[in-house]
């Protein structure tokens, strides 16, 4: 039987009068890339933010690596977070720090007794993994959108996470850079043996990176399965229109 890394059951989350998640169930298996698709505002980002404890659910259960996230103490939550890499939609690089300082930030605070040479080696290794060795002393403001995404991913990789959560990794990028990022996600999965959830509304990204799709519709998963199963034989009109729209625009 496949090992479950993340298990979500009957997840409910509202913001005021707005019900965003209305009973979401999800299983993420070790080694797979699960793509969560949905319209803007459908609650995709909320779902993964609950998984890392940035938001708390109103009802339901979220177990990550066997631990119920909402019941963890701050210390245990931090220990769990070290095993999860979170790539933010807008990269969330620290503006006042260079690329090197951005990469060192989680390292120096979470790995004790690290010598300077070991630190440099780790920084260079992850920068090399994302193909941006030459940017080490640059400020985030000097980088392009695609480069910022890559550095954001590198910063999460430096702690060698078991799970990667990508929030809209290709949003706002040109098609060629999108393809580069998609390939990078696959390379990261292969090299670091990660299990990933990729939040997107870009079907090309979904097709290239995902082993399995889950489409979030009106607060619940409307369709799950492989890309072809979900989209090419779609019964639900909303899933079909999602596919058609992406097909037309791309």
């Amino acid at each position, binding site marked *: 039987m496949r090992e479950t890394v993340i298990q979500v059951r009957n997840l409910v989350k509202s913001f005021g009068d707005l019900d965003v998640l209305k009973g979401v169930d999800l299983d993420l298996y070790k080694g797979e890339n699960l793509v969560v698709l949905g319209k803007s505002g459908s609650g995709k980002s909320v779902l993964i*933010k609950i998984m*890392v404890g*940035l938001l708390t659910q109103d009802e339901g259960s979220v177990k990550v690596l066997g631990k119920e996230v909402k019941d963890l103490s701050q210390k245990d939550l*931090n*220990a769990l*977070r*070290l095993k*999860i890499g*979170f790539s*933010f*939609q*807008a990269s*969330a*690089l*620290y*503006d*006042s720090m260079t690329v090197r300082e951005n990469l060192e*930030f*989680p390292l120096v*605070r*979470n790995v004790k007794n690290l010598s300077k040479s070991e630190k440099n080696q780790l920084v260079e290794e992850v920068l090399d993994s994302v193909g941006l060795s030459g940017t080490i002393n640059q400020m985030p403001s000097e980088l392009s959108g695609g480069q910022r995404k890559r550095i954001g991913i590198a*910063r*999460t990789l430096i*702690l060698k996470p078991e799970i990667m959560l990508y929030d809209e990794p290709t949003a706002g990028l040109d098609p060629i850079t999108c393809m580069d990022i998609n390939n990078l996600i696959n390379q990261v999965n292969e090299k670091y043996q990660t299990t990933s959830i990729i939040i997107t509304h870009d079907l090309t990204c979904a097709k290239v990176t995902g082993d399995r799709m889950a489409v979030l519709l009106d607060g619940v998963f409307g369709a799950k399965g492989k890309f072809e199963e979900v989209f090419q034989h779609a019964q639900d009109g909303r899933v079909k229109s999602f596919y058609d729209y992406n097909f037309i625009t791309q």
Partner: protein
Amino acid sequence: MAGEPNKKDKVLGKRIDKFFMGLENAYKFVKRFFQEVWFPPYEFKEVIRQCYQIGWNSLPLISLTGFIVGVVFTNQSRPSLAEFGATSWLPALISIAVVRAMGPLVTALIAAGKVGSSIGAEIGSMKVTEQIDAMEVSATNPFKFLVVSRVLASTFMIPILVLYTDFVALLGAFVNVHFNELVSLSTFFVQVFDAISFLDITSSMIKSLFFGFTIGMVGCYKGYNSTKGTEGVGKAANSAVVMAMFLIFIEELLSLQVTNFFRQL
């Protein structure tokens, strides 16, 4: 229907709720600072970086303002003293005014504008661009890194800046007195130090600590709780300045009462 609140009452009720919720949040924020400041990990490097930003980078503005305050205050005081033939009291008058009130107040108000707004805007923009969330998911305590370091830095640096402002303002006053009354530097400063007491210096330093704490805390609180994207960042910076200035005047008033109490003992 009788007994049902009208629209005006509802709006007023919401405002009162919002005010008290804001007070509660501010109390929790300050409480969290005191809970976290004592325990490791200590962000020494960030505290020093912030001390440099707050202290060193404020020097040009503080120098100019302090000097002008000294010159202008001396010039404005001279006619009143001249009426009684007491212009020789100018150094004493100026030193008391500068050390007891004007130095701390001018420094704190300038720092509230410069430092408070920059802290509010910086943390606010970090909040809306998810940089604070990024720190949290990398198992780092953003409150300790951003808030504790900035509040400590401003609490340490404002008293130092106040001492510097006092000195520069007195220098400005000396220039004015020297060219009008032909008083030498040593005579001027002997009169200055004769006029001020230990209580004047200590009360000035203690209230400056409070001013620094207030500026850092209000800037961090407004930035940390900013919402609504870039519009929220602007609002955070603006309200950080307004709130810090308001609180500084309240603290000045309170410190005056406390110092007067000790003066009468």
